């Protein structure tokens, strides 16, 4: 399987990433893509900016582990994970997950699995600026619940 993992400050081009996955092999019959964006509100209050910190080296290893687990679990041809770091503004793209497979069910499920695990396991932390006050975002129980259901299936 082809896997691409990138952590970067600059933006990504969803169309270009889709084309790369589409063209991996002629056997590709499904490509599922997900893009996560910066919301304008955090707890009903507008934000000026969002800053993403990560743990260089460890983050890449953890994302590779997640991708490896997806590969072991579904019949996949390619996975691309891109996560931005640094300062972002509302409606900016934060994260991209794209999965190519022969059949759609594998791509749909693997894309959701990668995002659910990324949110609860990969070493990223978000800080928001609201009216000039900066604070770190708290983790959400709903993200943990979404992640847990993949292990409950085993």
């Amino acid at each position, binding site marked *: 399987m082809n896997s691409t993992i990138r952590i970067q400050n600059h933006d990504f081009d969803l169309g270009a990433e889709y084309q790369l996955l589409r063209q991996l092999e002629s056997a590709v019959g499904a490509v599922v893509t997900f893009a*996560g964006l910066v919301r304008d509100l955090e707890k009903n209050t507008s934000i000026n900016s969002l800053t993403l910190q990560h743990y260089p*080296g*460890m983050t890449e290893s953890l994302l590779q582990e997640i991708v490896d687990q997806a590969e072991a679990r579904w019949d996949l041809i390619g996975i691309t994970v891109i996560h931005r770091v640094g300062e972002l503004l509302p409606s900016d793209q934060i*994260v991209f997950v794209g999965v190519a497979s022969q059949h759609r069910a594998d791509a749909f499920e693997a894309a959701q699995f990668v995002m659910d695990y*990324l949110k609860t396991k*990969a*070493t*990223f*932390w978000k800080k928001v600026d609201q009216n000039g006050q900066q604070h770190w975002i708290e983790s959400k129980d709903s993200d943990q619940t979404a992640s847990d259901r993949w292990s409950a299936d085993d």
Partner: protein
Amino acid sequence: MIKLLFFGRLGDFAEGVSASIDATEGLTPATVRDALAADHPALVAELSQPQVLISLNQMIVGWDQPIFDGAELAFLPPVTGG
């Protein structure tokens, strides 16, 4: 020397904490935390939260993991990426 890293909100509490400590006999994440208690009680209270994970050389470990010279010890609050 042991390199110390505090991520996310833990970094705010760790202002003024030395970025490295000397390697000594019997060092573990728990002894590192306890050694910070006198000068940085607010940080140690945060580190003691059950959701905080510890990594040694970028692998998740327990509080009693032996630490050897040259290691990188990081304290990780719950992650919030994606």
